[in-house]
């Protein structure tokens, strides 16, 4: 990689992303080995357990809450009690119910948007790295241009175009989040396409699509998996930020970031309105960070 290349300065030697493609020469660890190493990481296991509980809570939300997200009681901004575990908000809705249902919003946005951004990032990064030439220049330039716009400005701008709903946020985060991943995948494909087994596959007359999908992609998978896992947390964090800036889902939707924004006037007399949804965002993102770190260490023990 040369330093004069405009795309390079932020990715020199791949240092910022320690899961680069340098170690592709060694044999991939067996799945059982990965799980064994992952299991030894207590933080990652704690993250996984929290995530499983959160998914269960999201699925069984109607069974573990006793109100609906729009149901109002006559007590406003009251603190936690036995009737309302997390208290009530400014118009008397049960905060616990809304936080639990909020998990549905966050997880849905997190997983669907990540699926979208990983798909775009892998496809474009692979095309760019494998084919090179004009298409590579085009894709790299587009990435440069979009990376020149601060992410949050871009996301907020596009969000205000698509409207303010869950699906709009999924589109925004999916369409803006793939840039860094595409660079990582491009770098992997660049280094893998010159290896002997790729040459062998070419010599055997396999189609280029088959070589990309069956020979190169499996060896470039490791950083993609780690990036994807951490991305879910990052997407949930961005979604919270967009909701907080009021360009995310709108009111009856119990988006955690929106709940924090709505509670900000009550910081001195009803801090629980900010605390519970804020803690929900924090713990969920933290779980993904721990799982992502654990996966990275488990997939490539050398990097620990």
């Amino acid at each position, binding site marked *: 990689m*040369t*330093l*004069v290349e*405009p795309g390079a*300065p*932020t990715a*020199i030697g791949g*240092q*910022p992303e*320690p899961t680069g493609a340098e170690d592709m020469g060694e044999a991939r660890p067996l799945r059982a080995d990965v799980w064994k190493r992952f299991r030894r990481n207590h*933080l990652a296991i704690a993250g996984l357990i929290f995530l499983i509980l959160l998914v269960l809570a999201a699925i069984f939300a109607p069974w573990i809450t006793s109100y609906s997200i729009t149901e109002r009681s006559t007590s406003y901004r009251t603190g936690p009690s036995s009737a309302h575990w997390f208290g009530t908000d400014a118009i008397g809705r049960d905060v616990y119910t809304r936080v639990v249902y909020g998990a549905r919003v966050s997880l849905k946005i997190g997983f669907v948007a990540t699926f979208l951004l990983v798909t775009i990032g892998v496809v474009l990064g692979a095309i760019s790295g494998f084919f090179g030439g004009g298409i590579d220049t085009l894709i790299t330039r587009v990435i*440069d*241009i*979009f*990376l*020149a*716009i*601060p*992410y*949050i*400005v871009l996301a*907020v*701008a*596009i969000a*205000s*175009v698509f409207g303010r709903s869950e699906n709009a946020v999924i589109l925004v985060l999916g369409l803006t989040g793939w840039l860094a991943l595409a660079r990582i995948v491009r770098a992997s494909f660049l280094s893998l396409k010159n290896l002997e087994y790729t040459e062998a596959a070419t010599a055997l007359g396999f189609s280029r699509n088959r070589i990309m999908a069956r020979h190169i992609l499996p060896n470039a998978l490791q950083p993609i998996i780690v990036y994807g896992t951490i991305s879910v*947390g990052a997407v949930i*964090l961005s979604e*919270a*930020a967009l909701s*907080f*800036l*009021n*360009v995310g889902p709108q009111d009856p939707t119990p988006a955690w*970031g929106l709940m*924090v*924004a709505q509670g*900000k006037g009550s*910081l*001195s007399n009803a*801090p629980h309105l*900010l605390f519970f949804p*804020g*803690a929900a*965002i*924090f713990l969920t*993102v*933290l779980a*993904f*960070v*721990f799982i992502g*770190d654990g996966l990275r260490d488990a997939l490539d023990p050398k990097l620990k």
Partner: protein
Amino acid sequence: MTSYIIRRLLLVIPTVFFALSFLFFLFFTLPGDPASLIAGGANRKVDPAVQERIEARYGLNKPLHTQFTDYWARTIHWDLGDSFLSQRSVNDILGERALASIRLGIWAVLIEVVVGIAVGLLSALRRYSLSDRITTVLTAAASAIPVFVLGFLLQWLFAVKPNQWGWPQWARLRTQGIGPNSWTLFFIPTGDQWRYLILPAITLACVATALAARMTRGSMLEVLRADYMRTARAKGLRERDVIMRHGMRNAMLPVVTLIGIDFGTVIGAAVLTETTFSWPGLGSAIANSVQARDLPVILGLTLAVVIAFAIINLLVDLSYAWFDPRIRLGKGEHS
């Protein structure tokens, strides 16, 4: 070297052009037109005569491509137009907002560099000690907490609670606005100013500090294993010199890269921090103008941020050559 800098600066131009043009067209595809917004309301009925006058005044009745070329003709002369909402010149808004942001940003970066690198270094030197483990968890936590949640948490702990507990006035930190706006040497707060500055500065620095600590730790651990470290010890250098002169300098390269890349994250965090603390900087101005669809302000402020972003990335690249003389900028392959 000079030709490298000039080439890099020239490359900034097309990037800025396309990025801003993208935003320009993006905002013209928005539902709802700016003229009725200026005339007074999102949903209120606007007198067609008024609307026509406004469209004429701002050139909004011209075809889109004419507006586009007009926009760039003005922008090249650094005339960023007037705000749709306040009618103020965007150049003025930019000037005053940028000052507040830069002051806050300087403190955040100072915290990031000093705390982040120190914590990362200590963590690496005492690997697997209790303090290393605590640092690891804390840095993960700092990167997972939403900026605005951290902001409110700090406000609650250091402003709301001290008020309720009746702490002495000077110990109660402020959470809203910039305060007296009194500074010396451009960025050092004087008088009461520090009480307004300290919480937003910590909030803004948090994510970046955690990342810097993490990166310093990882990079230092790698360097500690290097042969030249053993050589330096074998030469009989003091341990402090070994770590600082031979270790740190080599470990800093990825950290500097990160601080450069991070600038984007810092801007994102600035938008949220400034909104949370009502700090009158660029970030809160961008957030407000996006919500109000105040196109000239959005484009003008974003232009400034994009240019600053590009220059910082250039400085980061130039600093590589200082940290690692093996890197020759502009000479193709480096080893």
